[in-house]
């Protein structure tokens, strides 16, 4: 990790304001499975469902634990609806 990156407050999840340090600290505290880390930090819980944060977090996780990125992401499931949907659309059957 470059010094300049480690020093600054680096947001990796813009949905939930999760920082690079949050990820590093959780792994150092002993969160040793990526899916648990993801749920603990709520990565992928926001409106974008992890489009920007997941790969970054998985890379850091792989680097710090020696595990593979592909294995880290293997349990992740995208949930419908893919983008946020106003509840009135679903409740009224489509009319606005």
């Amino acid at each position, binding site marked *: 990790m470059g010094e300049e990156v480690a020093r600054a407050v680096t947001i990796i999840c813009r949905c939930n304001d999760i920082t690079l340090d949050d990820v590093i600290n959780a792994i150092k505290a002993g969160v040793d499975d990526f899916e*648990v880390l993801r749920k603990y930090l*709520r990565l992928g819980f926001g409106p974008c469902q992890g489009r920007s944060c997941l790969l970054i977090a998985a890379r850091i996780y792989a680097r710090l634990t020696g595990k593979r990125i592909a294995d880290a992401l293997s349990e992740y*499931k995208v*949930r419908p609806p893919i983008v946020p*949907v106003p*509840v*009135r659309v679903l409740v009224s059957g489509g009319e606005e």
Partner: protein
Amino acid sequence: MRVVIIGGGVSGLFTAYELWRRGVRDIIIVERKYLGSGGSTRNIGCFRSSFTSPEHVVLMKKSIELWLNYRDELGLQLKQSGYLWIARKPETLDVFKKLSAFHNEYGVPTRVLDPDEAEHVQPGLNKSIITGALFDPTAGRMPVLENLVKLYLKLKSLGVTFHYYTEVTKLNTSNYRIKSASTSRGEIEGDVFVVTAGGRGTREILASINIKLPVVDETRHPVITEPYVEVIKPALVIDWDTTGAPYVTQTEHGGLIFARNISDVHEAPLTSHRVDAIGATIKPIIELIPVLRHVNILRYWIGYYETTPDHHPVYGPVQPYENLYIAAGFSGHGLMMGPITGVLIADWILNGKPSIPIAENLTMERFITGRLVKEIAIVG
């Protein structure tokens, strides 16, 4: 003494913690996937003791006391903000009065509210369509994932061994004892075995030694919205008089979770999406709290109620084996019962009987004798 716990969720972790507190040092937890990958991370994080059977009320009341102790001991988070059960029909209030009297008899301070009092507990309630409510101020909610990870890190620091992504395929017996568990990563030997692997998992493991456990995983479909400021004041608002008892809870991070018991295929795969059910799940709650019609749905997921014929858990020894115990079939209440599960299973292993006698009613024997427990309020 080596204790092998099959199932790395809330029940398994609390069983390990309680055994450790009483001096057991060789504890192995075997988990098919990752920490809490079954019901422990798929639930909505709520707890209550206002049930309709003495077994549930007594054990859950004790469990909440233990949760409060662990909040201080392990730095967990939980909040007692109450459950609000809404009545739409006048006759439901009679049911609520009877339930409240029953709860009060067991020291659970529920009370019946009129519509104005209910609106005070949950601002924005549509008073014109409700007849009253039942309120349980001792119920509450917690951030599940955070608490589970804290408990996990504590157990790791105490020296509990975890084997993840290790699936138990069968138990091996000799002279009415379990000798070992065959797993996808080799054989694990032990002196005592505890199965806490959820409904179907526990059923399949017991089937390997020809024991039948009547439990089925009923599919549930919670829906979560984008985060909002606090709009739901109690831990849970439940629409008692609508089929499938729809409810809403708001997480510590602001997301509103809606769920309703819709009919579905039991043990449906975790990827069998029922987007069609989202509208029906939320509609009754919007009638009760109209401001919720403005929220945006973020995503939905599937979880299971590992359900027994009488909607109560199965605890204790598995006859005729001398060193096998189970904790399964929580029927939607495994998280809230976690701490008491640990205490009871540790009691059975170390003392041969539970420290709370009423728990004896929840052993597997009841499915043979036919003395099932009765429960009429299964939501949340």
